[in-house]
Structure formats: structure tokens, C-alpha cells
């Protein structure tokens, strides 16, 4: 167990030095502002997510990171009173334009939530395959998909002998990796992760970070995190969100992770990444 963890750290470090991802933009936010009822919570966010990159969104609580990430796959609109301005381009097309079906968007842009949410009425295997059933997606060789995605999520060895047990029986960290596997089974092009490790212990966190690095070879990842070391470890790019009192959240600074953490241009970013507020 412990040797495996040490190895994974080595893998992580090795991959930190891999060259920057391609420059093709897969997802792009243009002047996105968000309201809940009359209250504006986010203003003028411009951000582009290069294909197969990992982007970390950091900032104190209540600055609109989670809200922003939920606009990227049209989950935002499920909240009563939600409103939005601006454009979100996925492969060059606005996902909010009238002829776009939100179901297709959510299928291509998957999401992992802060709180693990395996479906309680399904087995581990059923949970992994649930996306296929729910979206009506046809993929053959379900056994292979289960093994493949659970391996990618770093859970396979722990559950391979009890795939028919309830998903809710797993520990919190295992449940989180289970829902990552579930999100991967529908082969999303983009994976949004809203503080996926906030409820996990360091060992599970490390496993998920390792998973993120692995996935970023094939999937574009956007991750909200409060853990700055995590942003440094996994993200190619970082964006810093901040909301002044009674004002909507804004992006204060964004750029490559090395720059944001090593040489921030804005004083507030410098303070935040050094843990001086927030």
C-alpha cells in the first residue's frame, strides 16, 4: 500500500515536467455574468480552456467558482431564479444557443461534485454503467468499460471482487472515485470537478490527483479547489476568483499555474496564494 503511494508521487513529479497541452481551445467563456434572482454573483468572466489541459479555479468561498463551473455544462439553469449573460463556446458553438440540447452538452461535459453522489439503488457496477443507461448511449462490452473506468479512477483493485454490492457501502473516498468512474464511462470530452477532494483524506486525494493527471491526456479538466498545493500539483493553468464585499465575483488574475503561484501580478493574488487571506 505505502510503496504504491510513493510510486504514485514519483509518477506525479515525472508528469509535472511534461510539455504544455495543445493550444486548441475546446471550451471558452466570454463575458459570463451570473445572477441568482436580482443578485449578481459573477461578472465578466473571460476564460479559455485549451484541449486536454487542466485548469484550476481558486479563490475564497462565495466568490462564484462553483457557480461558474456549473454554467459550463448547463447545470446552472436548474436552480430557480438563475440567470446568465455572455457566451460559453464549446468547440466554437454557444452552448446556450436555442438549438442546443442541454442533455447533449452535459453528456460531452461531465461533472464530479463536491459530495460523492453514487445512486443508492444501484450496485457499484450499476453505478459505473448508469451514465450509459441514463443518457441512452450505446457502448458494447460493459465489463471492459467497468474495469477500464474503475482502473482510471484508481478504484478497480479495491472493488473488483464486490462489483455487485451497493455503491453506498463504499467509504467516502471510494465513493468519490466511483462517481469519477461513472462520469468517465460516458466518455466526456470535458470533465468539470467541483472540489472533488474536499471531503477526502490525503491518500484518497493523492489518488484522485494522480487520476486527474492521467485523464488530462484525453480529457479537458476544470477543477475547483481550495487546496493550493493541489492546484500547483495538477493544474496547467490557474484562475483566481475574488468577490469584494457586496459585489459580484470576478476573475482577478489567470494564467499558467507557475506564473500565478510564482510570480503573480496582482497583489491580492499574491496574498491569497501565500495564505494571507481567504
Amino acid at each position, binding site marked *: 500500500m505505502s510503496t504504491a503511494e510513493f510510486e504514485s508521487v514519483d509518477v506525479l513529479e515525472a508528469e509535472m515536467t511534461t510539455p504544455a497541452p495543445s493550444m486548441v481551445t475546446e471550451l471558452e467563456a466570454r463575458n459570463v455574468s451570473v445572477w441568482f434572482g436580482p443578485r449578481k454573483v459573477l461578472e465578466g468572466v473571460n476564460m479559455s480552456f485549451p484541449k486536454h489541459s487542466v485548469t484550476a479555479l481558486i479563490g475564497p468561498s462565495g466568490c462564484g467558482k462553483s457557480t461558474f463551473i456549473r454554467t459550463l455544462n448547463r447545470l446552472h439553469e436548474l436552480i430557480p431564479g438563475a440567470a446568465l449573460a455572455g457566451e460559453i463556446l464549446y468547440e466554437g458553438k454557444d452552448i446556450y444557443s436555442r438549438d442546443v440540447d442541454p*442533455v*447533449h452538452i452535459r453528456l*460531452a461535459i461531465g*461533472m464530479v461534485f463536491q459530495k460523492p453522489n453514487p*445512486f443508492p439503488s444501484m450496485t457499484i457496477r450499476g453505478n459505473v454503467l*448508469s451514465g450509459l443507461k*441514463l443518457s441512452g448511449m450505446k457502448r458494447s462490452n460493459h465489463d471492459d468499460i467497468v474495469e477500464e473506468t474503475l482502473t482510471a479512477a484508481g478504484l478497480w483493485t479495491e472493488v473488483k471482487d464486490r462489483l455487485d454490492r451497493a455503491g453506498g457501502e463504499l467509504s467516502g473516498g471510494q465513493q468519490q472515485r466511483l462517481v469519477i468512474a461513472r462520469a468517465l464511462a460516458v466518455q466526456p470530452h470535458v470533465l468539470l470537478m467541483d472540489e472533488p477532494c474536499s471531503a477526502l483524506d490525503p491518500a484518497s486525494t493523492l489518488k484522485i490527483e494522480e487520476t486527474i493527471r492521467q485523464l488530462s491526456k484525453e480529457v479537458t479538466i476544470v477543477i475547483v479547489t481550495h487546496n493550493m498545493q493541489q492546484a500547483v500539483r495538477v493544474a496547467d493553468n490557474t484562475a483566481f476568483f475574488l468577490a469584494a464585499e457586496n459585489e459580484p465575483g470576478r476573475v482577478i488574475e489567470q494564467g499558467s499555474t507557475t506564473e500565478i503561484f510564482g510570480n503573480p501580478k496582482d497583489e491580492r493574488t499574491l496574498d491569497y496564494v501565500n495564505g494571507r487571506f481567504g
Partner: protein
Amino acid sequence: MSTQTLDPSTLPSLAEQRPQRPWRKRTPKFTASVVLAVVVPAIVAGFLWQTSSIPTPVLMVAIYLPLQLVASTLASLATRGRRGIADSVVIVSAIGATVFSLVILLSLLGSLIVRGWKALSPSFLLQNNVYISPSTPLEYGGIGHAVLGTALIVFLASLVAVPIGIATAIYITEVRGRAVPYVRFFVQSMSGVPSVVAGLFILTTLIVTGALTQSALAGGLAYAILMLPTVARTAEEVLRLVPDELRTGALALGSTRARTVFRVVLPAARTGIVTAIILGIARIIGETAPLLLAAGNSDQTILNPTGSPVASLPTYIFNNVALPYPDAVTRAWGAALALMIFVAILFTLARVLSRGRLGR
């Protein structure tokens, strides 16, 4: 900051430790006053019960209860001062109210068992009422036809009320359309409809117009009117308990709203939905008025849902209990006991199922 090390010799030895409950330690004075406060009123009331001719209920309410109240107040005044008075008043009234309602419930159950027990036998549960007159001895005839009739009527009612009730709950919690406040208002009003009105409604709209005759189907429809609000409201409550994370989780996998409801939300609420159905059945199974009007009565075992009046447990009880023959009255009590047992089984089933491992 430095940590102080305690001298081990001053600490109690670990070897001698036994599990204790220090929060339960009472002073002798406290124990004595509690014992006195319980024993003295009981002895006084028991003495009066033996020697005087005061009726028992009057004795309990007018003498024992005030006496107990005063005794407890004095006891808590002695042990805890004035703060204890309010405490003891609340405790004595709470226990008194609980015992009062339990006594009513248990005496009801007791009289059912005492008077109905004689009638209960395998033949009573299986035979029907053909060739049975009110004066026929208890060994002959039974409620089999009424049990089957009730089962048939309840089944038909469920066939109508369960899908509509669950659909209503889904509309309120999942679809969240604009009419939700109005739908909830109507469902709540419906649960206040007197059962005789439901029977009259079916009578005037379906039976008087000639669309149906008095039958299991007509009775089932009248029952459905009463069952629908219970199913809808209970199902609504259990669907509300399904965490929103599951819904967003399913939607984030590219699920449609409909698939989310049918494959994630309803399975997660499965046991609660079963409870809703059982509570709906328990709500209606004893209703008499709608069946008198819509289903009629029969002595025969009827399995045809339309075309002929059908017997049921409530109407059987209704028809027998007022007859001037002791055996007929005993039959009515026996049927009432059987009905009570069925309801108890249903409620137990609902409790057991809702304790299920998955989908709380």
C-alpha cells in the same frame, strides 16, 4: 507551552476501573421523595377505589390525577426548589395525557378482541354468508366473501389511485410546473373530503346515470377518491427526501428529466413509495359509507368487478352489528377484529419496508 505531567500516584488506578454511570447518581433524599410522590397518591386512590363507590373514571380524573400533581410538585419543591415545580407539572401532565390516550386505544383493542374472538375461526375467515340468517349459530358462515370483496375493491382503488397519486407527486417535486401551488391546494382539499361524499359522487355520476351498477368497480372508484390524496402527499414527502445531488448527478451524466425520475429518483425512494401505497390502503380499508352507496352488499362470493353488488368487511360489520341476534353481533365484532388485524399487518409492513437498507 509546556505540558504538565501528573504524578501517577495521585491518579485512580486503571485496574480498578469499572463502567459507571455518574449522571445517574441520586441523593437518598431525591430517591425518597420520588418514591413518596409515586406511592402516596397511588395508595390513597387505591384505598378510595376499594372502599368508596366513586366510579373509577371519576376517581382517576378528579382525585388521583390532582393528587399525583400535588405530590409530584411537593417532591420536586423539596428536592430542587421552585424550578422543579414547572418541571413536575409538565412531566405529570405529559405522562397523564399519554396514559389517557393509550387507555382509550387499548380498551378499544381489548373490547374488539373480547367480543370478536369468539367468532374468529378458519371457517369464519373462509366461508361466505349464503344460507346464513342472523340467528344461525356461529359455527356456520363467515366473512370470506367480505374479505375477498374488500381485497377486490382495494385492488381496483389502488389501480386508479396509485399511478395518479405518484404522478401527482412527481409533478409537484420533479416537474415543478407552474400549477404546483394549485395542485397541492387541491390535493390537500381532497384529503378533507368526507368519505360519504366520495360515495355520493360515484353514486350520482356513475350509478344513477347508468354507466355502472353498484359493484366492486364503483366502490373501488369511490375508494380511489379517498386514497389519492394520501398516496400523493406521502409520495411527495418521500420524493422530497431524495437528495438533489442525485438529480444533478444524473443530469450531469447526460440524462433526460424523465430518465432521471424513473431510473434514479423513484428507485432511490422505492421503499418510501411502497409506504405511501400501504398508508393509502390503510386509510381507506375501513371506510363504510362509500361502499354502502357505491358497492352495495351481497351474501355471495363475487369476483366479478362489475355487474353485481359485492360484500366488504365494513358493510358486513354495518349490517350485522345492529341486528337483535347475539351471534350476528358477535360476527360483526369478529369481522371488525379481522379488519383491525389486516390494517395492523399493513402498517407493520410499511414500517418494516421503510426501514430497508437502500433508499431511505
